[in-house]
């Protein structure tokens, strides 16, 4: 079973992601901000990180950069899921090492499709 780390400061989004992902056969670990996400990523073996951008303590782009600096996360897919869609910010995400960018609100089917693609399980 693949493990996905979801990082979002919105409890409602975390709840929805947990439901959609776990009901599709994924093991889900949840973090409420970038700092917690980084700590949980270090403490667990994660197959994919799904992170928001605008969060307290540490934003998603900074988290991505921090994860890419860890040897264990050099090749782990990191997907950004944000309300932000500015090309400048997307470029910042790409430069930090993100694998893809999804703009909220997400459609469960399309989200799962993207995650399968990122995990190479399609």
């Amino acid at each position, binding site marked *: 079973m693949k493990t996905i780390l979801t990082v979002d400061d919105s409890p*409602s989004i975390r709840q929805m992601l947990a439901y959609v992902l776990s009901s599709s056969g994924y093991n889900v670990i949840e973090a409420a901000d970038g700092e917690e996400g980084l700590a949980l990523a270090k403490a667990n073996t994660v197959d994919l990180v799904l992170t928001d951008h605008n969060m307290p303590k540490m934003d998603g782009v900074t988290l991505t950069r921090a994860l890419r600096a860890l040897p264990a996360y050099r090749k782990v897919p990191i997907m950004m899921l944000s309300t932000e869609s500015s090309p400048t910010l997307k470029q910042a995400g790409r430069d930090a090492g993100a694998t893809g*960018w999804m*703009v*909220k609100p997400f459609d469960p089917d399309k989200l799962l499709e993207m995650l399968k693609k990122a995990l190479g399980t399609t």
Partner: protein
Amino acid sequence: MQADSQAGVQNLIAIGGIGGNDRDGAGNLNAANNTLATANTVSQTTLFSTLLAFQELASRLSSQVHAAHDEIGETRAILKDAIGRLIPAFTETLEGRSAAHAPGGLAESGGTATPTFERTDATERSATQNAAFNALQFQDISDQLLAHAQCRLMALTTELALITRALEPTRVIKTEVVLPSLLRHLELVNDNLAKLDLSLSKPVSKAHLGVGDMEMF
């Protein structure tokens, strides 16, 4: 006092053309410059009451902005509370349906068996359920917009506080001292307001709940 203040405002408007619909304040600056030139004709008493009237106005505006800020905060809290109840209820309903339709689930055991949650493939979710998932993300999106509006209102209260301080009647000594000081404050507030849009990046680019774009890098 209020009648005196209003009379003072009327006098200043009459001689300087201050007020009107000028949104960027540049017209006010010019008007104030003109006023400075003819300020000697304004009595100390009239100037004092005029400044006092504007100070009271700034203070009242500040109270209104604070109230709007607080009301937005209350709206955010209500939305957060509502979504905190809606999502568990929604997922519980879906899980109940999933269990009831699964082999050995509630539907086939007369409702006495413990629900066993079956894996729900993407294809098993209906379009209506997916649409509900989209719609239920409204709180996250609207909360960011509301927080953004609150930041803007707080910045406005800072500027109003600056204006209130500038109009402090105890600082009134001489017209030729007061007016240049007011002009400096006016310029500062205008500059700060011009920078406001630059310092607040809009976090949400869309005003509807249509599904967002997705791209792989």
